[in-house]
């Protein structure tokens, strides 16, 4: 079931999505981490970050909002403490990289390159300090600059994760391709606001979580976005957004995805990635397909 994203080998097409699987080692009691196709780490920055104050999670209809705020241990501790464990346990991982300036990203890429990190997924839904904190990922010019400068410093598999909160995802995909990325992953979370207002004993109480919306509710948006990305690029696409079952994989394949990330559904079912990979393998074997490539072709041929 192994496949390649550009030159990066993963054990199967199911990847655990960034932010939903920590640094991978913590999930050992709950699933076969080493059997997962690959694990995109929690978003990692140059320096450690404490993340946001206040409530960080809000459940919504068929989904959730998070505003973790990139709490992470920083690239140094990741390399010193986590990589040895990941190696020892034979866990395939992708470094999800985040920053506030182009320099941050370039430095992360340089460090990753030096330390033999085989794949990076750029989280470009971060505020761009220089341009008044608009996200890098919403403007195709900034995105192009960003990816170009990372590409210069990084020889491994460079995946760029697109944000759906834009008018034209097509322009972003084109910018990323032009800058020399190896693959695109999509989508990151939708901008969402969760509010809960209670009226108790004559007084209103409010809870508000402004952050990223994920889960099954965003699947239709994700499918539409992946289809639009596929319409302008031939780069491999890692599709995500609300994936929870085998049929979801078929749907993402049909719009052009080559691999998949599973995010929020890990919270619902902590061995979701294992189960999905098993089901995919079983389907391929018992229904007479040669391999995953063959299945992909057959699904793309459906009228």
């Amino acid at each position, binding site marked *: 079931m192994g496949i390649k994203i550009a030159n990066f080998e993963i054990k199967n097409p199911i990847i655990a999505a960034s932010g939903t699987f920590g640094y991978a080692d913590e999930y050992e009691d709950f699933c076969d981490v080493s059997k997962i196709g690959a694990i995109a780490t929690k978003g990692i920055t140059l320096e450690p970050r404490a993340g946001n*104050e206040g409530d960080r999670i809000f459940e919504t209809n068929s989904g959730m909002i998070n505003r973790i705020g990139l709490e992470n241990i920083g690239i140094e501790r990741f390399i010193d403490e986590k990589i040895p464990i990941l190696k020892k346990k034979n866990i395939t991982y992708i470094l999800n990289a985040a920053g506030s300036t182009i320099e941050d990203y370039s430095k992360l890429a340089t460090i990753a390159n030096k330390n033999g990190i085989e794949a990076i997924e750029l989280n470009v839904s971060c505020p761009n300090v220089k341009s008044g904190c608009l996200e890098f990922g919403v403007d195709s010019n900034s995105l192009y600059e960003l990816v170009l400068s990372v590409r210069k410093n990084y020889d491994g598999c460079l995946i760029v994760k697109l944000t759906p909160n834009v008018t034209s995802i097509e322009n972003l995909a084109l910018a990323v391709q032009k800058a020399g990325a190896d693959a695109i992953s999509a989508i990151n979370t939708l901008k969402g606001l969760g509010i809960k207002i209670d009226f108790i004993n004559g007084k209103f109480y409010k809870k508000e979580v402004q952050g990223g919306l994920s889960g099954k509710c965003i699947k239709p948006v994700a499918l539409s976005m992946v289809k639009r990305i596929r319409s302008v690029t031939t780069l491999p696409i890692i599709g995500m957004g609300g994936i929870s079952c085998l049929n979801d994989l078929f749907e993402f394949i049909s719009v052009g995805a080559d691999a998949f990330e599973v995010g929020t559904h890990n919270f619902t079912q902590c061995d979701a990635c294992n189960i999905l990979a098993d089901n995919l393998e079983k389907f391929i074997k018992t229904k007479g397909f040669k391999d995953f490539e063959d299945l992909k072709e057959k699904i793309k041929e459906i009228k």
Partner: protein
Amino acid sequence: MKKIQKGSIKNIEKIAKDTFALEINSNVMQACSGQFISILCPPKTLRRPFSIKGFKDGVLEVFFKLKGDGTNYIKALQIGDSIDFMGPLGQGFKIQNKKSLLIGAGIGIAPMLFLKDELNKKGVENFLITGFKAQDEVIEGSDKTVIGGSVIDFLPEVIEKFKPEIIYSCGPEIVLKLVTRVAQKYNLEAQIAMEKVFACQVGVCRGCVIKILKDGKIQNATICHDGPVFDAKAVVWE
């Protein structure tokens, strides 16, 4: 052992207004007070965490209060139905051989009853005081039950009389804050069981962090994995 389980409902029973006791047959080998299990409540995205109220021979007991879709899903389960849960999860109370005052507010009584059992088995002297909003919400099993008022108002009196050496508590944040203050005043160690909305349940999503003081530094700790039980002195309230 994998901490994800399919159990089956052994019993489900109303014990107070909107409050139910649930017993689950499981393969669980060990559980201690302060730990919790997280129940899948389809079609909800997130699992619902519940403190363990008792554990014996693989049978886990929890109490739950009806709030929304999740707890209503559980309520609708029938004896024999299967139930998908993760757990036991988290760090429970660190039991000490000291005269113990247990303070529960509302449904927070559940882990206190479990703790009381454990203390009794170990022969540790203890006293459980609990508070409920109204008579019909009362859950049995305490040494003293406060109805209507705040359990906090009775603490000075109880502490003077019972002379505890340690406090354990579970309840809404507001109660835990006040318990912390009382403990400080009487210079008592206090362990408190905290709550927040959980996503992953296991410490990876960083969705349930609070600030704690550790090694002289303010740090993040997850309620689901590093807690739910914390040393009250260490908690930095928002």
